[in-house]
């Protein structure tokens, strides 16, 4: 099984921004009780943290992309400018935060 760094960066960045934009973290963490949940719980559980779920979604999406998608499926133009993808993701995160 071959790991593609390009697909990982592309997939993980897109999954992170997508999950942030659509507010779809993979898991939710409630630090007051130290409780993890796949669904949003009630307000009795206290403050909720989505960042772990977003990061997990990005890593999982990136790993699946990196191991499953063949390198040649990545358009040459994207491969040549692959470092620009995280830059776009950084700008997107900043823009989403201003919404």
């Amino acid at each position: 099984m071959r790991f593609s760094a390009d697909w990982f960066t592309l997939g993980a960045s897109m999954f992170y921004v997508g999950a942030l934009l659509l507010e779809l973290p993979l898991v939710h963490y409630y630090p007051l009780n130290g409780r993890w949940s796949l669904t949003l719980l009630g307000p009795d559980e206290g403050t909720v943290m989505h960042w772990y779920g977003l990061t997990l979604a990005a890593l999982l999406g990136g790993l699946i992309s990196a191991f499953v998608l063949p390198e040649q499926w990545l358009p040459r133009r994207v491969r040549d400018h692959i470092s620009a993808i995280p830059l776009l993701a950084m700008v997107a995160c900043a823009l989403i935060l201003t919404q």
Partner: protein
Amino acid sequence: MTPIISLLLLLFHGLVSVALLGAITHQLVSLLAPAPAGNNRFLSRYRRTHASAYSRAVVALYVFNFVLGSVLYPEYRLDARYALEEMQMHTVVSAFELKEHWSAIGLCLLPIYLRQWNSAGSNARLSTILLTTIVWFDFLVGHIINNYRGL
């Protein structure tokens, strides 16, 4: 987590950040402004480092510090963030939110950063600039938060 463990972890988090800052800044300077041969002044020797030798150390320090930050993050949410919001420091809170997102994007960037540094003919300029930006931004925001509220 007990306060003393939080404090020690925070201190360690800061120390690892400084090591990471030093490594990636040194690498970026030697990449963008390599020193001319024959000049032995301090800045020239600083710029003449073997930049690619830093890439694995940078990745290891980044991942390690990311994990340390993830462990400490709930402490910030429960103790520091509410206090900052009560003090109306919304800019500081927003800066921390951007820090958490950019640090995750930095994690996504690591495989191509490493590949570009370790394969001949690859241009690691943009990935190194991005990673350096993220590391400096995260460090400064973390430092500001620490000055305001401990975590």
